[in-house]
């Protein structure tokens, strides 16, 4: 399965990335494209910008591990993940997940799985610029709960 994982400070074009995955293919019946975008407020507080720090080397390796895991769970025909780092302002793209499969159920499920893992296990950290200063974003328990639902009984027993 073609898998592309890129970390970059520059922007991405979701439509162009999806087009690359499906070009020349007639077996793909479903493409799911998810974009995460920088918001101008967090829990009611305005956010002027955020800076994403990452662990070079591990981030790519870690994401590759989830892509491999997704491939064992769903019959995927292609995956592209792009994660940006550096300073981003509201409206900027942060992350892109594109999944391709024969049928939509597999593409939707794999995209959600990959996003849930990116949120809780990929080594990225957000620092927000708020009116009262800059703060490191706390991990959300709702994100952990979302990721936990993908743990299989076998993994939970370990």
């Amino acid at each position, binding site marked *: 399965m073609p898998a592309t994982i890129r970390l970059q400070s520059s922007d991405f074009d979701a439509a162009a990335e999806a087009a690359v995955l499906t070009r020349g293919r007639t077996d793909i019946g479903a493409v799911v494209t998810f974009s995460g975008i920088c918001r101008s407020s967090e829990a009611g507080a305005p956010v002027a910008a955020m800076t994403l720090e990452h662990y070079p080397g591990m981030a790519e390796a870690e994401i590759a591990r989830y892509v491999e895991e997704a491939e064992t769970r769903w019959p995927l025909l292609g995956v592209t993940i792009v994660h940006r780092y550096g300073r981003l302002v509201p409206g900027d793209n942060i992350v892109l997940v594109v999944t391709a499969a024969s049928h939509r159920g597999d593409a939707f499920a794999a995209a959600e799985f990959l996003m849930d893992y990116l949120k809780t296990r990929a*080594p990225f950290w957000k620092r927000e610029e708020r009116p009262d200063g800059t703060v490191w974003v706390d991990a959300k328990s709702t994100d952990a709960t979302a990721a936990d639902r993908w743990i299989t009984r076998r993994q939970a027993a370990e």
Partner: protein
Amino acid sequence: MKLLYFAWVRERVGKGEEVVEPPAGVATVADLMTWLAGRGEEYAFAFENPKVIRAAINRTHVKASAPIAGAKEVAFFPPMTGG
């Protein structure tokens, strides 16, 4: 071994990486955090609550109980907030 720090752990320690040689007896990630916390005020601050700090050995997530024998690169960081 090479140590890496990220996000607020990096800010508190005051550097992003360093090379250390922990003494014998420092066997696990948890031991390493305890040892680091004793190296000065900035380390004590960074590792004051080791339960919230995550670790990776050779670029793979590990638990605090993981042995550090043979580790080339150990990283400490807060819970991830990517995506």
